[in-house]
């Protein structure tokens, strides 16, 4: 090897070493593990106990179903909301933009445990502010933590609150990259503001929106903190158990690392497939 390259690799070596040990090796190791029954000592090659179990385990299907419901409802709602927020943030009429940008982004920075605790308080059956508000407009109090549809809604609300602003900021950057004179040209072309939004803004934002959707899909596939902390470990009775939580329980509560690995790979493959589908739908016409 040329001396110059050797020196370069010498400098890169610490990083490459860490990358190999903490990234590459776990990926390979967990893949191997996903074919092993890890509930016997020593571990034995038995894909039936891991990959095979996935096909017949009702708990896995429950977690998959819950994750998909959250994904299908939460991602479109959040991205729509984020787009609206971004458009409002971009409005020349809005004052104190910096403050709003900060406020929208702040939920991401808040500690997960604190945020979960606040949501648990806000949605408390008896003294939570949400139920008080509902009661004040004549809607009976909702038992957010003990009814599955309500708990599921709570999860979706929480995740949306946390990530909508983050996506809004990304979409805002996309909005700001659309040159102003394109809108001026459309104004001179007598195109109304609403039609400008539909026919100019949205198509030009498509790559950014697809990016946000893909990020959100990956995030939703891994959803863990909210069902763990807000709905009390996927409660009621597994009603909000997600794939992420199911993986955690298999891996760390039941020490079934082989099965947990096969769940992890399934999640990754699903996320990749759904994201690819999304990118294909959102692809730019040639």
């Amino acid at each position, binding site marked *: 090897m040329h001396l110059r390259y050797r020196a370069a690799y010498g400098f890169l070596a610490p990083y490459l070493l860490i990358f190999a040990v903490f990234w590459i090796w776990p990926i390979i190791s967990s893949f191997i593990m996903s074919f092993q029954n890890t509930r016997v000592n020593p571990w034995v090659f038995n894909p039936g106990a891991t990959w095979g179990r996935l096909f017949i385990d009702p708990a896995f299907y429950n977690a998959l179903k819950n994750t998909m419901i959250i994904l299908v409802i939460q991602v479109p709602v959040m991205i729509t909301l984020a787009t609206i927020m971004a458009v409002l943030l971009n409005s020349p009429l809005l004052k104190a933009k910096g403050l709003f940008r900060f406020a929208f982004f702040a939920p991401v920075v808040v500690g997960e445990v604190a945020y979960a605790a606040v949501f648990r308080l806000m949605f408390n059956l008896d003294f939570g502010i949400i139920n008080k508000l509902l009661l004040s407009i004549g809607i009976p109090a909702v038992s957010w933590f003990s009814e599955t549809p309500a708990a599921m809604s709570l999860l979706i609300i929480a995740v949306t609150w946390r990530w909508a602003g983050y996506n809004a900021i990304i979409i805002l950057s996309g909005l700001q990259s659309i*040159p102003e*004179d*394109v809108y*001026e*040209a*459309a*104004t*001179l*072309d*007598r*195109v*109304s503001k609403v*039609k400008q939004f539909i*026919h*100019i803004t949205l*198509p*030009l934002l*498509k790559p950014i929106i697809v990016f946000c959707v893909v990020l959100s899909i990956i995030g939703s596939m891994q959803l863990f903190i909210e069902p763990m902390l807000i709905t009390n470990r996927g409660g009621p009775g597994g009603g909000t158990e997600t794939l992420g939580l199911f993986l955690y329980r298999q891996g760390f509560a039941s020490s079934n690392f082989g099965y947990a690995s096969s769940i992890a790979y399934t999640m990754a493959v699903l996320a990749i497939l759904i994201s690819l589908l999304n990118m294909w739908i959102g692809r*730019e016409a040639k």
Partner: protein
Amino acid sequence: MAELSLKNVSKSFGSYEIIRNACLDIADGEFVVFVGPSGCGKSTLLRMIAGLEHITHGEIRIGDEVVNDVEPADRGIAMVFQSYALYPHMTVEENLSFGLRMTGNPKADTERRVQRVVDILQIRELMKRRPKQLSGGQRQRVAIGRAIVREPRVFLFDEPLSNLDAELRVQMRVEISRLHKELGTTMIYVTHDQTEAMTLANKIVVLRGGNIEQIGAPLDLYDNPANQFVAGFVGSPKMNFMSAEVVGVETGNVTLMLSNQGNVRLTLPLKDTPPAVGDKVTLGVRPEHFTNADGGIANLTVKVDVAEHLGNTSYIYANVASGEQLIIEREESRHDKTRDTLTVAIKSSHALLFDSAGNRLQ
């Protein structure tokens, strides 16, 4: 088609006045060029006509109608932007027809208009392409096409050629000129390039610092600039300015001493009230208004700093001892070299005089 007039039009951003009392009449079918250095307000003035900027005072009239409060889309204007402002996600065809489609224009009429543009600009082979698949010149042509499709009363061009390379700029300049002849529509064109202004315009409006300095036909501006700024701005290479002092005043004549040019004396005819003896004035001479020694009113001896030989002509960048630089055009000579000493004469009929405030003395 329509005439257009501005009456005492002003524009302020806060306390900062961008355009001051602009008055201008543009006849139907005229090609008017707004020219001036960066930040002089020429683009702002154009955008005020378009309705993209509100005016603070005054009146803008297009045809018989005062358009101060008329929406941009209803002013009957079309604009070509410096950046082209094409819709990046649409094909050329969609770009051309977008405005008409969105406003519910009958399909047959839209197709007729687009076809007309395709014929005028010869862009048939580009119709299915997107802007990013076009060269700069092609994009510019599509942007112009989008303006033509609107069949406006007035075309507005905001520095449309400034993103093109030199060769393409010349080509597009000719095309725009041809287009004006073909359509006969009133056109207003903004540029900082005085060559574009000189070659395209029926009428040039020179702006500086938000003020209209002079309005006139290109050659009028060249031959009879109203002040030192216009004299210096119009013409390339630019006019030479030499510091001078009035040393004698007689009826109809003024005698000057060029203090930075070896105290050379010369006498010029003057109709205006003459300046007083001892006043500082500026003598303006264009590069082509020097002639061989003893052929004019005063001889100047200069040292050649740089000689540019262009084939048909040569430009001599010459220094005098005081540091003042002169640009001299020498059609016959291809032999001047750096460090040569050269004696040239000023042609009297072409020398211009400006007072210390930069106003022309005639």
